[in-house]
């Protein structure tokens, strides 16, 4: 298996995640996109860890998972709070930054 396949897969995953974040209106889906991007980054870490025989890359992947779990907790609770006050999770309805 060539290194390039892993990198390409990670790139594809990252792109899907990024496009999801930018394109989809639902907050939940956006968070999912973010998760996808994090996982693509983890994939790259692990790939290089295996290729270089250095475990610190895998350690980094664990960190990413933990941070992602924490992020999901915080993010989802914000989403719940927004939903409580605005009755919607549509990103385009939440434009308090400008109006």
């Amino acid at each position, binding site marked *: 298996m060539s290194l390039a396949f892993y990198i390409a897969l990670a790139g594809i995953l990252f792109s899907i995640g*990024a496009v999801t*974040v*930018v*394109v989809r*209106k639902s907050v939940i889906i*956006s968070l999912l996109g973010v998760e996808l991007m994090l996982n693509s980054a983890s994939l790259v870490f692990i790939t290089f860890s295996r290729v270089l025989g250095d475990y610190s890359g895998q350690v980094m992947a664990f960190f990413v998972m933990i941070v992602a779990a924490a992020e999901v907790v915080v993010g989802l609770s914000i989403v719940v709070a927004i939903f409580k006050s605005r009755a919607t999770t549509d*990103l*385009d309805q*939440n*434009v*308090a*930054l*400008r*109006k």
Partner: protein
Amino acid sequence: MNSMLAAVAAVLPASDAWVGPVATQEATGPAAFASLLFVVPLAVAAFLLLGGNRTNKWGHWVAVAASWFSFALGVAILIQMMGLPASDRRFTQTLFTWIPAGDFQVDFGLLVDPLSMTFVMLVTLVGSLILVYSVGYMEHDPARRRFFAYLVLFIASMLVLVLANNYTAMFLGWEGVGLSSYLLIGFWNQVPSNASAANKAFIMNRIGDVGFLIAMMAMVAAFNSTTFDEVNAGVAGASQGTATVIGIFLLVAACAKSAQFPLQAWLGDAMAGPTPVSALIHAATMVTAGVYLIVRSGTIFIYAPIAMACVAVVGLITLILGALIGSFKDDIKKALAASTMSQLGYMMLGAGLGPIGWAFAIFHLLTHGFFKSLLFLGAGSVMHGMNDQVNMRRFGGLRKFMVVTWITFMMGWLAILGVPPFSGYWSKDHIIEAAFSTSTFAGADAPWAAWVFGSVAVLGAAMTAFYMSRMFFMTFSGKARWTSDVDGGAVHPHESKPIMTVPMIILAVFAVGLGGVLSINDVFTTWLTPAIGPVDHAEPVLSAIWIQIITLVLVLIAAAFAWVKFGKEAVPKAAPYGNAFSRAARNDFYQDEINEVIAVAPTTAAVEGVTAVDRYGIDGGINGLGRLSVWTGKVIAWTETGYLRSYAGYMLGGVVVIVAIVLGFRL
């Protein structure tokens, strides 16, 4: 060239015939109190202006007393000076250090010499008489106190001007008289035209003031001093260019102050002020300051023959110009103003002839001061009896109603005509003779100069006779052409009160006798010698007796012509349309229009240009910067949508771009 050198030698201290201008001594006796001459009037002016309405009732008498005090002190100094030998008649006194600026220092010093004393006597005597006259003339004016405050302020300034021993202190007085003149021309500033006449005088005088300042700067640059003594000493060793620059700019200053061509336009309008002001400031004293300046700076002009020639030419032009304007004016005061201009032209001519003319310029200035102020006071008296009308075409036949005014005016008229033995004859005749004795022009031998200068001076005398006789006959002779109820209100001419006529009578005595008395044994020119050097006698190209005969005959012919035209024949009540020339003269040869075109319009255009550059260039640039940031802000704000997704998109885009750049450089 030889006579040039002789002229130079005559004013230099090396000449052993007399002790030159350098020999001065510390003031003693009455002369030590010379500063009181102007301090007292100045204090009174301040007192009256600060005292306010409380001094309304008696304030004018304080002013009169201050003026007579200055006169009395002047007489005391004069007597002291007469008792001394000629070589000792030059006092200086340093009052205080005025401008201490390192190497350059200006002391406020006084110079009491025969020339300044001549002016002190003229200013204080004529001034005091006019102040007395004004008590009557301004009797019903609610602002009489202010009027007197300004008048004594004028007297104080004029005395500073003539007593200063350096150009800087002289400039203080120079500005002071300009200020008083401005305040008094616009005294009745409730009438807009009076206020603008005051502005006109003030602004035109600024041109001269700039000339004065530039001349002083040149003095400081060249000699590091502005005292007369040091400048005179310095100019002897300086280049002719330096002397010429100083001389030309002093002439500019003199032209503005003395209403000489081409800065003459303000004097006619200055008649907007009360008549005593016209008599004192715009006839007898202030306007002669220019002549004083030229004569006082005589040494500079000796070393600057080109500037000297300019003085003479300016005098000649103004002499004729004033006479022509005077011949066609119907406003009695404006005609007198034109006459003043013309007579000042005579003095300038005398001052521009060099040592052969200085003493006579000052002599004419002195006699003119008396007879012209008399004529103005006479005009004021006429106006007083005629409801303040000034149009001579609506006067006529007044001699029966104003006997004292008529007789005193006649004395002034005969004096200005130069009829022997009246004052004007003695002074004007000498200037004409001196003009006929000119042998150089701008430093070169010029045999033609005597004929040109002389004939113009004689022609001027004839024209003077014409316009003054015209004025005299139109006002006092012929049939009454007074206004009635239908055209301007009925008039009831009457003689003025003694408080006005007595000063006129005293001035008339001087107008009759002063010239003759001061000519006995050339007492006046001898008296001036310690200040301006001896008169450089030169032979006129025409013998003196012929000059006198020709002048007198022309004067009589001109006067007779005026009598036929304006005394015997009926004078039309309205000015005839006239030919192009008379219309031009009546309009002051379109001096205002010319000034408008050559000075005002370009200045206005320049101001408009600068304003446009400021508005569209500088302001435009600044506003443009402002608009640019607003526009940039708008564009940037447009990207700030508030949508989370677009921010995420920007971030993503940014990361992609940065990665692309990084990879691009790597690869």
